[in-house]
């Protein structure tokens, strides 16, 4: 009776929350969002749509307005706060403006710009190394079945799910004994702990939807596993690897607790600086830092969505 939708090999989905829950591919395999038929190789079937609007048009308009406000107001506010001076209650607009915090960013040597560079480097390395480590792990996990598969998935999820403060206290001790406490390398290793876990789960999902026959054919033709990986698998999964890199990047980019505990205050990343500025009442610098922290991921998200749209099959 029910028409089973064919599983789609291509996962065309936007990167889920950074440092947050895993994508759960095994329950939402084709991940294409909503009614947009973009990047769907399956036959286009229209779900219950236009005539079945459940909310009245007015309700929908209100919802859209609410969504728009919640998406825009935070950034507008941060932008305004980053240039305000003496902006106290109950003023709706700042009485004085100052470019002090932005000048400090552009004028090199400022804490914010140094922290931004440190964050960029750490996040890029986390994304790249995380991908490289997690892809084979994810694929290996996919070969498991039954309870072993669940155990493997749970083991991979554990470093992501455990509270960062709890994980960080143990990591701090071990990294200190290795002489990596307070070093960038130590912080990188700490960031890789949740990143590899998260990405392993992601690749598990990818490979569970992956058609391995091409790989097997390459093997029968005599290629070694490494050659297969490099020449066959990786090119087929280019998009997923890019997504995984972005996910790993975001996990590191947003980290606070792990960096705080393992870096010992010596490794200053951008989120750490924003945290310190808010805590010390320097709202101007906190707002500037927060914008620096938020804008690159947003730009990346927009780029990904635009790219996805460009590969769209003819729309409904």
């Amino acid at each position, binding site marked *: 009776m029910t028409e089973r939708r064919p599983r789609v090999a291509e996962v065309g989905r936007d990167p889920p929350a950074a440092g947050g829950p895993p994508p759960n591919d095994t329950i939402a395999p084709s991940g294409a969002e909503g009614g947009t038929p973009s990047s769907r190789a399956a036959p286009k079937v229209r779900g219950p749509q236009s005539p079945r609007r459940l909310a009245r048009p007015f309700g929908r308009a209100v919802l859209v307005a609410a969504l728009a406000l919640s998406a825009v107001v935070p950034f507008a506010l941060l932008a305004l706060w980053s240039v305000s*001076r*003496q902006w*106290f*209650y*109950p003023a709706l607009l700042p009485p*004085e403006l*100052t470019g002090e915090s932005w000048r400090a960013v552009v004028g090199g040597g400022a804490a914010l710009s140094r922290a931004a560079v440190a964050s960029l480097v750490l996040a890029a390395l986390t994304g790249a190394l995380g991908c490289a480590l997690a892809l084979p792990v994810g694929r290996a996990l996919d070969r498991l079945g039954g309870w072993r598969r669940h155990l493997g998935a749970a083991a991979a999820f554990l470093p992501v799910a455990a509270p960062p403060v709890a994980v960080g206290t143990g990591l*701090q*001790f071990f990294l*200190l*004994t290795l*002489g990596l*406490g*307070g070093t960038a390398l130590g912080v990188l290793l700490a960031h890789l702990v949740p990143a590899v876990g998260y990405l392993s789960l992601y690749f598990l999902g990818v490979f569970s939807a992956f058609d391995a026959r091409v790989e097997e054919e390459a093997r029968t033709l005599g290629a070694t596993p490494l050659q297969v990986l490099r020449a066959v698998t990786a090119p087929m999964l280019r998009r997923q690897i890019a997504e995984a890199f972005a996910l790993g990047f975001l996990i590191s980019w947003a980290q606070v607790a792990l960096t705080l505990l393992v870096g*010992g*205050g*010596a490794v200053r990343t951008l989120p750490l600086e924003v945290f*310190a500025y808010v*805590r*010390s*009442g*320097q*709202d101007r*610098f906190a707002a500037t830092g927060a914008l620096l922290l938020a804008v690159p991921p947003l730009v990346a998200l927009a780029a990904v969505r635009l790219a996805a749209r460009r590969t769209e099959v003819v729309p409904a």
Partner: protein
Amino acid sequence: MVSAAEVAAMPWDSVVGRARGTSVTWLMWRGDPSINAYVDGWVAPRLRREYGVTLTAVDAQGAQILNQLVVEREAGRVPGTASLLWINGETFANLRKERLLAGPWSGRLPNAAFVDSASPIIARDFEQDPAGYESPWGAVQFALIYDSARTPAPPRTFAELRDWIRAHPGRFTHDQQFAGVTFLKALMYAEGGGVARFQGGFDSTRYAEGSARVWAWLDATRPYFWRQGKAYPQGVAELHRLFANGEVDFTMSNNQNEVVTKVRQGIFPPTARALLLRDGTIANAHFLGIPFNAPNPAGAMVVANFLLSPEAQLEKQKPDVWADGTVLALPRLPPEWRSRFEHLEQDPRQLPRDSLAKYARPEVAPEYHERIQADWRARVREGGT
């Protein structure tokens, strides 16, 4: 690795020579932009120019410094990461007790000759003898801060404060960290019959009596605190934000001149003023220490000596820089420096020196600080719901 005591025994020229071309990591509180600007923008370039020392400040205060050194020692980290520490009071006491400080060394600094060692505020750190394990850096006095536009007639004693709080519910609170605990200590002196009763080491009976009065005062006043005394800002910076935005009418600071720098930065409204309670406010000094596993004790000593120099102390005291009191004895300085200190520009918001001296009370043993903080947490913060 050469220990700090060995370095201290060397002639000063060789210490400076050893420090040249090296870097020093300094664990200090980074929560105040004026202090950060002074250290990063004035001290660090001069150190690099004159001594070839690269100074890196790392954010850590009190308990975090203790924690880092403890964990480093547990993990066998020698040498560690930091060479210089900004400490005082109970942090110093705990570091000494755990033998995490190197020394003695501070008496060997050339600029130590200028220090006002006769002043009880500077010669003793919470009643403890620095004994060469820490070098004095600055001296401050606790003050309340209010907005003269909102509160034209502020209370002048703890009794008046209690009445004021009851008459203005929800407009007063204190923070959970150093400034708030200092407030409680000052309250303990006032309600407990004066600071003299608590001097001469820690006495648990006296503490019990004194703290009982504090809890009594708080129990009578807390329901009229901000948020009915059920929530307290984590640190003094959050309290400042509440004050500036008009959520409360008072904030506080361990530095009586913080109001000057914050108004200049636009963080406080221009009508903010400092207030000394006539019951007495606590004056203390803050210091610099060298950890047991310092990788660069020579560099740390050069930095500490520079920070103790008349030049650096004068700059630090300027109202548009940090307005932190000096630890130098003016009579011991060369005449031209002495006159520069005396003619230093005073901001009109600064409190007059004789009032400060009149109401200054010294710190007592660090156990009072720790006990009152721990008991406040258990009794007030956690018992209060």
